[in-house]
């Protein structure tokens, strides 16, 4: 089993996931990340995931594909995926691909957490 590329913590019923790598470009790493997050989703009955992009400088379309797969899996289990702390240059990639319409994207972790709490209250 290879070393995790993620830092995972749990606050209430929300799983916060932070990427360790600055560049999410490598096919093998992307697959490992996707598998690890998919495992978290499979273990939860109603997965609430918050992915923190604070460390990320670059990502590829393969990384976008992995995020879409994760989003689809979370939705299938009536869960919710939110993304936060995305660098402006990377946010532009989401805008160009119109994936800003697919994902729930928040400027900060706090903002994302508030939206989770509003949705459950």
């Amino acid at each position, binding site marked *: 089993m290879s070393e995790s590329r993620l830092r995972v913590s749990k606050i209430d019923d929300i799983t916060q996931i932070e990427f360790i790598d600055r560049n999410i*470009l*490598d*096919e*093998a790493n992307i697959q490992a990340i996707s598998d690890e997050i998919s495992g978290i989703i499979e273990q939860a009955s109603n997965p609430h995931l918050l992915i923190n992009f604070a460390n990320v400088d*670059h990502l*590829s*379309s*393969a990384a*976008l*594909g*992995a995020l*879409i*797969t994760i*989003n*689809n899996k979370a939705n299938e289990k009536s869960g919710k995926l939110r993304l936060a702390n995305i660098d402006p*240059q990377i946010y532009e*990639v989401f805008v*160009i*691909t*119109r*994936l800003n*319409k*697919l994902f729930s994207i928040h400027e900060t972790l706090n903002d994302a957490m508030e939206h989770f709490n509003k949705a459950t209250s």
Partner: protein
Amino acid sequence: MGDPQTCIRGSETVELLNDRQAINELIERILALAITTGLKDAAIFAVRLAIEEAITNAFVHGHQNLPGDVPVLVEFKVSQGEIQIAIEDRGPGFTPDTLPDPTLIENLSKPFGRGVMLMKAYMTEVLYNPQGNRVKMRYITP
């Protein structure tokens, strides 16, 4: 020799294996050259993304039925205000014009099919040879 539209005169040519370290080193080398010509942060981000996508497409799609040790050809030329990069795989090629638009609502949740559109969005010009196994990208400083 080759297709005139995607040819780069006076370029440096590298045979690149599908090895992450070799890919990183080549991209860093091209970008370091680009920085010496005054290319700024946003442009570096754009060029890096486009090269990554083109190399990934070459290996993942172009070489999907070829042994893992078959290299792709990367040609590049950096001059004042302009970067040209060509990537040629040894696969059968494809027809880029027939790719579905990934930004259509019905395609948004499909986890693939965004590489070529990102290359076109970030580079000044993206041209394929008639066979579709070689792409030439050009970035011109605005």
